[in-house]
């Protein structure tokens, strides 16, 4: 019966449960390369399982759980706290003690306030005048340069074009501003104490 079945149809054979399960057809060709999943008869016999004391196992488990618990505790305590940025944070001390730090400034007299207001107005005028003066200077400078460029253009187009080119050497230009006292020649600054103020978190 089985023989006829085989001859009749492979599909039919495959559909039989249990009996021909060792042979699998995964190909659509007529003579497929079949692979057989035989039983593993050459394997080494299984080793006998060692019996461990259940109390030791329980202890191990407890240890693991304890370790994880500890980690969780630590994270919940510190995990959300970010490293403070000293530049952004307001000095707490100064705010809690603001009252103590209040300066007892003298009450200004009317004359004093008036003087200050007048001086402020005077200052505003002074600054405006300097600004106007500066603008006039810039104007004169530009006029002088324009005149020079016009004269140059009349002489030579090549030189004129060269003069109009952007000077990229200016990009790296630096200037050290005036200071209140001149530098002392060959001055060696005294060594200070090294104090490490870096905070550890």
């Amino acid at each position, binding site marked *: 019966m089985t023989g006829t079945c085989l001859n009749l149809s492979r599909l039919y054979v495959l559909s039989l449960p249990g009996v021909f399960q060792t042979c699998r057809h995964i190909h659509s060709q007529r003579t497929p390369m079949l692979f057989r999943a035989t039983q593993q008869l050459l394997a080494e016999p299984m080793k006998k399982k060692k019996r461990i004391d259940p109390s030791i196992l329980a202890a191990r488990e407890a240890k693991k759980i304890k370790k994880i618990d500890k980690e969780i505790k630590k994270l919940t305590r510190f995990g959300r706290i970010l490293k403070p940025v000293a530049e952004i944070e307001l000095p707490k001390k*100064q705010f809690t*003690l*603001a009252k*103590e*730090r*209040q*300066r007892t*400034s003298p009450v200004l007299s009317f004359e004093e306030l008036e003087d*200050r207001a007048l*001086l*402020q107005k*005077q*200052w505003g005028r*002074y600054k*405006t005048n300097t600004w*106007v*003066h500066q*603008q006039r*200077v*810039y*104007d*004169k*400078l*530009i*006029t*002088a*340069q*324009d*005149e*020079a*460029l*016009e*004269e*140059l*253009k*009349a*002489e*030579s*187009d*090549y*030189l*004129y*074009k*060269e*003069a*109009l*080119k*952007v*000077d990229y*050497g*200016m990009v790296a*230009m630096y*200037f050290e501003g*005036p*200071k*209140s*006292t*001149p*530098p*002392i020649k060959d001055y060696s600054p005294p060594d200070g104490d090294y104090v490490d103020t870096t905070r550890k978190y």
Partner: protein
Amino acid sequence: MASPSLFSSLMKCLQGTLFSRMRVLNGQLSSHLNANQVRHGSILYSAICVERHPVVTSKKSRIEENFSEVLSKIEKENSYLSDHEVRRLKEQRAAKSKQENAEEEPSNIDSETVTALDLEDKWDAEIKSFTPASRITQADDTGDQKSLDRKLDSSLYLLVKQNVAGRDHWVLPQATWEDGETLRQTAERALSSVCGDVSANVLGNAPCAVAKYVPPSEDEEQPIKLFFYKAWHRGGNVNIDKGIASDYVWVTKEEMKDFCHNSYNRHLNKFIFDI
């Protein structure tokens, strides 16, 4: 009261600036249209104006002095007490209460702690032991005009005594333009050939002013155009080439009048300003 005139002057300034910029831009555009032709009608010169910037701040004017005083007063009034001041106050209070207690029961504990006042004394002593360099230098006292150490609070300009048209004149270092170089390169060459190893940053490729000299008689002589370039002094001492120039000075704008010829000075006034 003075506002209408002030306003109009402001507007004039702005207008002037805008128009001149526009002119430069227009010039830039039209230059591309022109053919690359060179026509030299006159002899070209480049001069370089080397400026040493002020080393120290200029003296405050009366109003600046007054205003900065008031500003610092206001700032102090609005401020909070510093840590040091709080500490000093606390110590003062503690000392007072100690004095009152001492009258009742004298204690012999003389603490050796450093108080805020002690610290202040220490700081005062420290600052007194340091003497900054004087704003008025030796060169100012002796009137040495070749030194760069003079007149630290104002700009200094380099003048050389150069042979111009057969006569010695006090001028900015100058050189004739030669074929193949730009005017800026001529200016840089002028500085290096006349003054040796003075390093300076030339400010831009464009000349900042021009001086025209038309010969009086209609001879073969060509007119002269002298283009000025500005530069910042960066270091190095003047080492004058005796073949080209005989002398040099570092002078302020006011002192230039005493050295330069009037007609030359007029041209310098077009682009040298002490703001």
